[in-house]
């Protein structure tokens, strides 16, 4: 069983997830529907990547493939360097547990469990038990600013608080990759921005890869990179230089960071 402190493991250099030529067709024959085609995408640790695009463009499908929930019908998916598209269900489930944290639009908390127990459940899945499990759950809630809400039930929490509990739960497995589908859609602007800032913090400070699917253009400025999908293809992939960030490391993405942040954002919002 993977230790709950797997963050101490040495993550191989290179992208957390790497997709090459990924395609996804739902169904077969006359009713077949091509949701994704020829996707090449690398998700880096330490960055918040936003996936945008009109409804039906394939964002959720792409996120599910990145998250080892859905199997692509074409192409390769590498998670931390390991090919995962061909793995069986049980293995993919184990990979999700070991490496990926999920956050959902509807929070998907367990309504019959307290906030602490929701986090403990994820720790239990990782094999952590007893007092250590409870202590770790409290630490994680503390980390998302809900140190005093451990005993509250989801029904008693605001949307933003619920999403924080969900983030604490997602962090329970010390994931290298955090995937969120429309995490702010049900939240007001301020709360949504705070959640996004939490994601940015996780990426920048804890060096996680974070992918957020959103329709919400008002939070784009909190991303490091914005990937836009249309009809199942990536039509735009823009890196936004961090405003007060220290000089970006000299790598291939440097080139993309040249353009001014404002120009990029204006263009994106207009599109």
């Amino acid at each position, binding site marked *: 069983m993977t230790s709950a402190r797997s963050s101490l493991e040495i993550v191989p250099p290179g992208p957390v997830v790497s997709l090459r030529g990924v395609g996804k067709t739902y169904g077969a024959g006359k009713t077949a529907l091509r949701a994704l085609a020829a996707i090449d995408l690398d998700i880096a640790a330490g960055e918040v990547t936003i996936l945008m695009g009109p409804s039906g463009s394939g964002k*959720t499908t792409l*996120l*599910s493939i990145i*998250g080892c*929930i*859905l199997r692509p019908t074409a192409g390769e998916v590498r998670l931390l360097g390991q090919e995962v598209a061909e793995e069986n269900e*049980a293995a993919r*489930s*184990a*990979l*999700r*547990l*070991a490496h*990926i*944290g*999920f956050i*959902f639009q509807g929070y*998907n908390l*367990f*309504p*019959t*469990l307290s906030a602490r*127990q929701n986090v*403990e*459940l*994820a*720790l*239990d*899945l990782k094999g952590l*038990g*007893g*007092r250590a*499990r*409870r202590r770790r759950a409290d630490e994680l809630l503390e980390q998302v600013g809900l140190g005093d809400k451990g005993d509250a039930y989801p029904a008693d929490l605001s949307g933003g608080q619920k999403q924080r509990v969900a983030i604490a*739960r*997602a962090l329970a*497995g010390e994931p290298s990759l955090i995937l969120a*589908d429309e995490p702010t859609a049900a939240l007001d602007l301020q709360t949504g921005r705070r959640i996004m800032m939490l994601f940015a913090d996780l990426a920048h400070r804890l060096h996680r890869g974070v992918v957020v699917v959103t329709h919400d253009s008002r939070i784009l400025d909190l991303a490091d990179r914005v990937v836009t999908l249309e009809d199942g293809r990536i039509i735009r992939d823009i890196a936004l230089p961090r405003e007060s960030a220290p000089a970006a490391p000299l790598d291939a993405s440097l080139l993309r960071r040249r353009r001014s942040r404002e120009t990029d954002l204006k263009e994106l919002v207009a599109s």
Partner: protein
Amino acid sequence: MSSITAAIARFPRMSTVLAVRNMVHDRVRLVVTLIGIVFAVVLIGVQLGLFIGFARTTSSLIDHAGADLWIMAPGTRNIDQSAAISERKLFQALAVPGIQEAAKLITEFTLFKRPDGGNETVIVVGFDPAQGLGAPWQVAEGDVKNLAYAGTVMIDELYREKLGVTRIGQIVEIGGRRAQVVGFTRGIRSFTQSPYVFASFASALDYSRIRSDQTKYVLCRLVPGADAAAMRKALSERLGDVEVLTSGEFSRRTQFYWMFTTGAGLALLVAALMGLAVGVVVVSQTLYATTIDHLPEFGTLRAIGASSRYLYGVIIRQAVLSALAGYGIGLGVTLAIIRASRNGGTAILLPGELAAGLLALTLVMCVGAAAISIRKVTRLDPAMVFK
């Protein structure tokens, strides 16, 4: 060790916590589930308890007679109805090495006239008071020794009312002969409508008009350490034209006859099976409804990487917890029913093995009922979480 238990109590597996919470979340459904299980446990417990009680009643005379081997007319199917055999079989049996003692016993349906003149049918049990094989084994009032006097009888206190006898010394008529009641036995039931009444062999011959050179059975006790099967073989070879059974064989044969050739046992077993069916249906329905209610959560568990085993674990825990709670209540109700029926005409017996078997059956019933729920969650597509 106790600190480990304490730790488990304070920090249970979250799958257990989730199972409990999911169950108590919908109180109405929990109550329905428990009622279903309790109903099944009580129905099965009482029916099987009746079955065991009846079965033991049918063979109680054999089981308490103190004999190792029974000699009887060939083709005898139960202790209450049999043909007579020659009393010479007694002496022949006594001549066989390995027989420590032997005695005659008769059972015969006979007319009984109550002191107030009403008629009943009884089964007269005639045993040899000098030997004690086949004597009444529980006496409430009076002394078995007094049966040695001619024209006496002992009846069971359960049938005081039926036989219209309230006290020792009353005079009744059995088979047209005067008989004085000299005592009461306690809790010696008859499976048939006709109560057992005990008398000496000599008096019983008189009451039942069986020829004095005949008997129904010869009961044998073996010398200590003798092999019953070998003795049984030796006796049947030596005696010819009789059947020799061990006490256990005759007991089972009698039980089988009354329980299955009369349909009484089948009816009880069918009722118990119906209880089981009701339990399975109710539990599988409520468990399934609970699973469906919490399906999104199972989907979330799946998505965040819970193994299939973990998912079954939650559902099976729900089933097991329901089973334990339902069994506990059901057993209490069953015991109350048994207590209430203790002084009635029927014996409901719940031996430890039956109680344990019932627990196992309840667990199997509930876990079996979880099957459709398990099927449902294993087929769950984790992609549902993004819908």
